[in-house]
């Protein structure tokens, strides 16, 4: 189909972004909006191979300690200033490494950035970091204009709310909590693009309202499961909307149980296994996720096609009898009511799925004689309870795997990442020197085959020790009007810059 220029597309989101740059935050909303305003070095294809954006090409030295980026020429910031390697150097060293939650890990090994000329930047590494190259999309690595930020406190720079970027869309207006209006950048480096005249973001907190807005034609695209799953079938059936799971290959979300290994009951692997056997994960996929996901076989998401490998990895199929036997073995006898032990689960209060899984587990656990209480709290309470007070038994958590294990999964299983007070770190408090070594080696391994093997060992060991039990590998959905084209064409999906997106004129 031939793209058509013009038109306004409306993009629904929730929560609302608080600032309009993602260089200093990991919050999803900020990532989505800022990607449209400011381009990153790369975007990624569905197999997570980098595709040029602001970096036309790159090369890595054999020892992996020098990474050279050749930057695109003739790119201008929205205020007309030229984009140079200086911007990249500044952002890397003073923003990503210092202020960005993930960036602090991803770029931890970057010692300095050399700028031999305006269009070349060389990352000098302390240790090789192959994972870094998977993480240069806008959401983790948004480049800031040095001429605006340098010498200021990036956290309070007014440009955070009136961003100046290099991307296909320019900032027009922002009503915090309500809407953000962007317009076409006529000086975009990729001439002719973008196609849309205007891109409007509306922040709608209520799921039913979002569905209604999409249906009434007030909006065109809703990313990341923000349309209630129960509505998807009907919307799809109406013929006016598309539901796709493409475009989340970098996200790789996983519903995972984290067992608190500091807890006397949870310490016992038999109990952990018993819990694992008591859960019918296919039921969860079918009934809670409406089929958008798969029972997880390893801690790595199946969308990480290069590394995901479950051969020889122990599996915990749904088997209540086995579960009961394990509990029996662990010394938990059933009382008159059939109750063997009482446990408390803390589902992550984010969206409904964890709560629903918690509610399902309460019933499933009853089958095997576990009286499960589902605790409710708000997000802050959850984080404090689990990561600071460590006053919990197990969670149902939603963990982002990211484009590479080093970005996400690693922190859940790597001993040193256990830090009191740090959210979404090693919540289980799992410490196994063998595991630590595997993960550290894998992180620095440049050879893809060896790397794959190391991660295979990781997957096996993780499932043997079972500090955390991966329940479901979630597939996120984007729901969009059929009139909106080209919105999920790479691994960044709705997180990409939307330069290619166009809107079919209404009939």
């Amino acid at each position: 189909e031939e793209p058509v220029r013009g038109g306004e597309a409306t993009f629904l989101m929730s929560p609302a972004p608080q600032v309009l740059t993602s260089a200093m935050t990991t919050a999803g909303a900020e990532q989505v909006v800022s990607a449209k305003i400011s381009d990153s070095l790369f975007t990624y294809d569905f197999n997570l191979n980098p595709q040029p954006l602001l970096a036309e090409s790159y090369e890595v030295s054999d020892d992996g300690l020098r990474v050279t980026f050749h930057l695109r020429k003739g790119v201008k910031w929205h205020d007309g200033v030229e984009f140079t390697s200086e911007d990249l150097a500044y952002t890397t060293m003073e923003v990503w490494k210092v202020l960005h939650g993930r960036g602090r890990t991803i770029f931890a090994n970057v010692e300095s950035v050399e700028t031999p000329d305006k269009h070349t930047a060389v990352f000098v590494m302390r240790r090789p970091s192959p994972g870094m190259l998977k993480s240069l999309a806008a959401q983790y690595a948004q480049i800031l204009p040095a001429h605006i930020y340098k010498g200021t406190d990036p956290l309070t720079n007014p440009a955070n709310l009136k961003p100046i970027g290099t991307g296909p869309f320019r900032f027009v207006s922002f009503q915090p909590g309500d809407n953000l209006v962007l317009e076409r950048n006529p000086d975009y480096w990729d001439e002719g693009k973008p196609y849309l005249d205007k891109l409007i973001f509306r922040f709608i907190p209520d799921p039913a309202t979002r569905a209604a807005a999409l249906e009434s034609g007030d909006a065109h695209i809703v990313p990341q499961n923000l349309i209630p799953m129960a509505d998807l079938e009907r919307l799809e059936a109406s013929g006016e909307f598309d539901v796709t799971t493409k475009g989340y290959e970098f996200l790789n979300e996983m519903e995972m149980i984290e067992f608190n290994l500091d807890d006397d009951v949870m310490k016992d692997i038999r109990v952990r296994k018993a819990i694992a056997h008591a859960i019918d994960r296919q039921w969860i996929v079918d009934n809670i996720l409406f089929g958008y996901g798969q029972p997880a076989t390893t801690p790595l998401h199946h969308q990480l096609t290069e590394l995901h490998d479950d051969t020889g990895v122990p599996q915990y199929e749904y088997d209540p009898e086995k579960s009961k036997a394990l509990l029996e073995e662990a010394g938990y006898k059933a009382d008159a009511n059939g109750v063997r032990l009482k446990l408390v689960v803390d589902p992550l209060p984010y969206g409904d799925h964890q709560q629903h899984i918690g509610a399902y587990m309460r019933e499933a656990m009853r089958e095997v004689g576990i009286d499960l209480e589902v605790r409710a709290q708000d997000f802050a309470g959850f984080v404090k309870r689990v990561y600071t007070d460590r006053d919990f038994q197990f969670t149902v958590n939603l963990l982002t795997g990211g484009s590479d294990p080093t970005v996400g999964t690693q922190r859940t299983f790597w001993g040193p990442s256990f830090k009191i007070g740090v959210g979404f770190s090693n919540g289980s408090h799992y410490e196994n020197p063998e595991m630590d070594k595997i993960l550290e080696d894998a992180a620095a391994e440049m050879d893809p085959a060896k790397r794959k093997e190391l991660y295979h060992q990781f997957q096996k060991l993780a499932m043997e020790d079972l500090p955390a039990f991966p329940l479901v590998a979630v597939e996120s959905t984007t729901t969009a009007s059929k009139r909106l084209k080209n919105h999920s064409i790479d691994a960044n999906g709705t997180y990409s810059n939307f330069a290619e997106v166009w809107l079919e004129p209404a009939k």
Partner: protein
Amino acid sequence: MDRQFWTYLGWRGAQSLVIIAIVIVGSFLLLHLVPGDMVDVLGGQRGDMDAEMMADLRARYGLDRPVLVQLLEYIGAVLRGDLGYSFRNSTDVLSLVLQRLPTTILLVVCSVITAVFIGTMAGVVAARHSHRLIDVVISMVVLVFYATPIFLTGLGLMIVFSVKLRLLPIGGLMTPGFGGNWLELVTNVVTHLILPVLSLSLFYIAIYTRLARASMLQVLEQDYIRTAYAKGLSTYNVIIGHALRNALLPVVTMVGLQIAELFGGAVLTETIFSLPGVGRLAYDAVFERDYPLILGVLLVCSFIIIMVNLIIDIIYTLLDPRVEVSR
């Protein structure tokens, strides 16, 4: 308005200050005595902050000092017109709240006016025909409005008028990036507000109808109504000229008592109709443990509610010359 009136107003002003002081101290202590602070949430969301960084942040935001010290400083700041800084939103609380306030005020004021106007009319009609069919019908309809939770009304109205009939926009205060002259702007805002205002006011229409009906019935029993009839006035003139103003007095009082509730109800309405108001701001702030912001919202709301009550007192004084005696 004589000196007495001003003394009275001064007295009310002093009372208001005391009330605000109680609100400040009370909510401040409440928020600071519960577990979990903003840094915990921040740490959680960022994913990889270490304890040191969190301690740093606490020091930076002043969260590491004794609660009483923080309280005193907060009070000092409030007196200077500074409600603190919302680190989550990278803005100072006051400007954040003020930015959102117009929407909420618009919503609440429109709802109050709608509720009082429709409610009073319905109440007067019902009282005028008390115990006849029309009264029973009005009373029942209004009772159903009253019994239906705001969110059901809101979602219902939205599904009917926005999705099915596509008559009115789904939510928001105006079309994003709306550009047009002021008349178009007003029209745009009005169309956006119809459903939220309706869903918020239906509940209150019920209250005012019942109140106006009861108060009208009571007023119609009064001797001065008999006097008015004895003068030879027609029923219409008696009701409009003599009864209505007296019957409105409890309604006016009720508005004062209920304005706070309306602000509360705005949380739900703003959530459903995605209006960028303070209700939603506070709701979001709660989940982010943005204490300065929560405090700021509570404080500004209380302040506004107190001001509204002062205004209502003045209106009351104008409507009822007896206040100087009765209060």
